[in-house]
């Protein structure tokens, strides 16, 4: 089962996995480990110290005893005698040192004066010290045995000549002693437990060792002392450990766990506030964390984050508001632009000589296309369709300027070519942004149906005469307006019959592009027109529009779609 996240845990589990209890466990474990290690080291040092003390006691005891005995008794003779008798015995005779026959071989020695003296010295030492036994003995290397010479121990006394087998290695130490330091050997004997035997050699005049004064001390008291020490140490250590752990736990809770929990709570409240749409919160700023460490640093950082997020939010709100304002202005601009174009149809209900219909669908909110029609005088209707290069606000503003200039210039001459030349000069003079505009301008004499037109880089007009189809008129083109002041334009004349229809449009129609980047083109435009050639002007434009839409499909429309159609119906006088 995967471990649950901290947030999903129950209170009990949280206590278990909390940072403070983890650190607590870790520290306790570490302290116990440290305690055990230090205990072992201390213990061994302590044991050595206690043992050394005991050993030195035993050593000094044996040395003092040997010094006193040396003076008061003839140790050499009795020692030599015991060893002589011992060595003279056969293996069988030596087999049982406690048998009466064996004892009998040495019995007379007990009556020696020196033996009594030795025994009394040893006894004095034995009585006045904690020594387990103090005795005189000699090691026989050949039989690897300790041969007793005098032993005052009343409980477990050995007669002279009694022997017992000993640890060869330990005895070698005694034999090879160079006289420096303390001479002792520690060993475990089933009968006595841990024992330390310390000794001092007694030498003959020749320097030869004749026997040793041995002092045995039991190390049992060392062991019991050590156990006591361990017990005390452990109790004290546990007490200190628990106290320390408890203090640490409290300290950790105060300086680590609580601040972190505070930050967590603040974060939770912060996001709850954000969800509820509350602004200007100060959850982190209200945190009172002054631990002076990384946690305080964290608190400061999140406080700064809260501040900068708030700044960001404010900015975003401002920017959003700004954007909304611009969007609103754009849509107002787009409405104004649309309102500048004549958009009430029929525009001149009392004029029966002609009918006109136009539409503009901008690709963006505002575009650079426009159409226009107005009376120059009572019998002359001017018609304009134009396309400003570029898009958006700049194109729209350029369009407004161009539209105004064209209308005023139309009032001064009846020749569209002259109008275009004048307009071109005026636009060139102010055209620092180097935009340009394509214009088709026609002036219709409503009495005769004669249409004089000029083309400044605009699409070919498409004309339908009565009883025939729409056909493209490849008229003479001049350069777009706004390029060069020197450009000349030429007028041409179209004679419209009653029932003639003229369709003008911008490149948004022919250059409408589908998802495969194919263009709608002039042929499809003419075909669409001819599908509805006998319908009303509005239906004709709607047919072209729907055909373009069908062709484009889901592809984005990049250009404005502007169309205008005029039908000449004949002079009202006729």
């Amino acid at each position, binding site marked *: 089962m995967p471990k649950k996240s901290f947030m999903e845990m129950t209170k009990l589990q949280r206590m278990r996995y909390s940072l403070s209890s983890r650190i607590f466990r870790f520290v306790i474990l570490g302290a116990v480990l440290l305690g055990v290690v230090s205990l072992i080291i201390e213990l061994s040092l302590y044991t050595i110290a206690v043992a050394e003390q005991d050993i030195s006691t035993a050593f000094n005891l044996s040395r003092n005893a040997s010094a006193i005995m040396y003076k008061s008794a003839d140790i050499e003779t009795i020692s030599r005698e015991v060893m002589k008798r011992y060595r003279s015995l056969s293996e069988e005779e030596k087999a049982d040192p406690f048998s009466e026959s064996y004892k009998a071989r040495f019995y007379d020695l007990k009556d020696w004066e020196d033996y009594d003296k030795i025994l009394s010295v040893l006894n004095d030492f034995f009585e006045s010290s904690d020594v387990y036994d103090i005795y005189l003995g000699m090691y026989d290397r050949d039989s690897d045995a300790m041969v007793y010479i005098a032993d005052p121990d009343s409980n477990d006394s050995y007669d002279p000549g009694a022997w017992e087998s000993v640890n060869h290695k330990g005895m070698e130490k005694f034999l090879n002693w160079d006289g420096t330091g303390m001479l002792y050997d520690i060993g475990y004997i089933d009968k006595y437990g841990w024992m330390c035997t310390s000794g001092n050699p007694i030498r003959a005049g020749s320097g030869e060792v004749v026997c040793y004064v041995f002092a045995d001390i039991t190390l049992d008291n060392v062991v019991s002392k050590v156990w006591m020490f361990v017990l005390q140490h452990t109790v004290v250590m546990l007490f200190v450990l628990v106290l320390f752990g408890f203090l640490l736990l409290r300290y950790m809770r105060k300086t680590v766990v609580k601040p972190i929990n505070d930050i967590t709570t603040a974060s939770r409240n912060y996001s709850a506030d954000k969800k509820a749409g509350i602004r200007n919160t100060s959850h982190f700023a209200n945190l009172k964390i002054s631990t002076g460490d990384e946690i305080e640093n964290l608190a400061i950082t999140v406080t700064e984050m809260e501040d900068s997020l708030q700044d960001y939010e404010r900015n975003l709100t401002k920017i959003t508001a700004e954007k909304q304002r611009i969007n609103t202005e754009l849509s107002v601009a787009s409405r104004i632009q649309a309102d500048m174009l004549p958009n009430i149809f029929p525009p001149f209900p009392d004029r029966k000589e002609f009918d006109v219909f136009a539409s503009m669908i901008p690709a963006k909110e505002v575009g650079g296309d426009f159409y226009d029609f107005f009376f120059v005088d009572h019998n002359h209707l001017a018609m304009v369709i134009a396309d400003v290069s570029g898009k958006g606000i700049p194109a729209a503003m350029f369009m407004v300027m161009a539209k105004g200039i064209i209308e005023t210039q139309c009032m001064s001459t009846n020749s569209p070519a002259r109008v275009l030349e004048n307009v071109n000069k005026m636009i060139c003079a102010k055209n620092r942004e180097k935009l340009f505009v394509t214009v088709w301008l026609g002036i219709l004499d409503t009495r005769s149906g004669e249409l004089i037109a000029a083309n400044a*880089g605009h699409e070919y007009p498409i004309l339908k005469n009565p009883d025939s189809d729409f056909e493209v008129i490849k008229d003479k083109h001049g350069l777009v307006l706004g390029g*060069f002041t020197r450009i000349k334009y030429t007028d041409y004349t179209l004679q419209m019959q009653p029932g003639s229809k003229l369709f003008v449009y911008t490149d948004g129609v022919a250059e409408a592009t589908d998802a495969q980047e194919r263009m709608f083109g002039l042929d499809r435009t003419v075909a669409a027109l001819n599908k509805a050639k006998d319908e009303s002007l509005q239906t004709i434009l709607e047919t072209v529009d729907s055909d373009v839409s069908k062709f484009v499909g889901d592809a984005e429309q990049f250009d404005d779609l502007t169309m205008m159609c005029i039908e000449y119906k004949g002079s009202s006088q006729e």
Partner: protein
Amino acid sequence: MINIYKSTQNDIITIKLEGRLDTVSSPEVQAVVDEFIDSAKAFVFDFNNLKYLSSAGLRILLTTQQIMEETGRPNVTVLGANEEVLEIFAVTGFDCVLNIK
């Protein structure tokens, strides 16, 4: 999408275009023209591989021609334009001002 190849010979800048010169790609081409507009003696636009030219592209040609004329170097040539592009030049009247070969 447009690929632009430029080469210079005796201060005559040849800009070869492949693809569509429209609103999207025109700033790239404009940048290349701007790079040489002060130093060039003449501009040659190689349209052999140009598929489409929009009004944004026309504007580049027009402004180039305008600046070159204003500074007395009226030498902007268009090479190898396809029929559709030639048609655009004819419709917009650019054939009157540009040297089209």
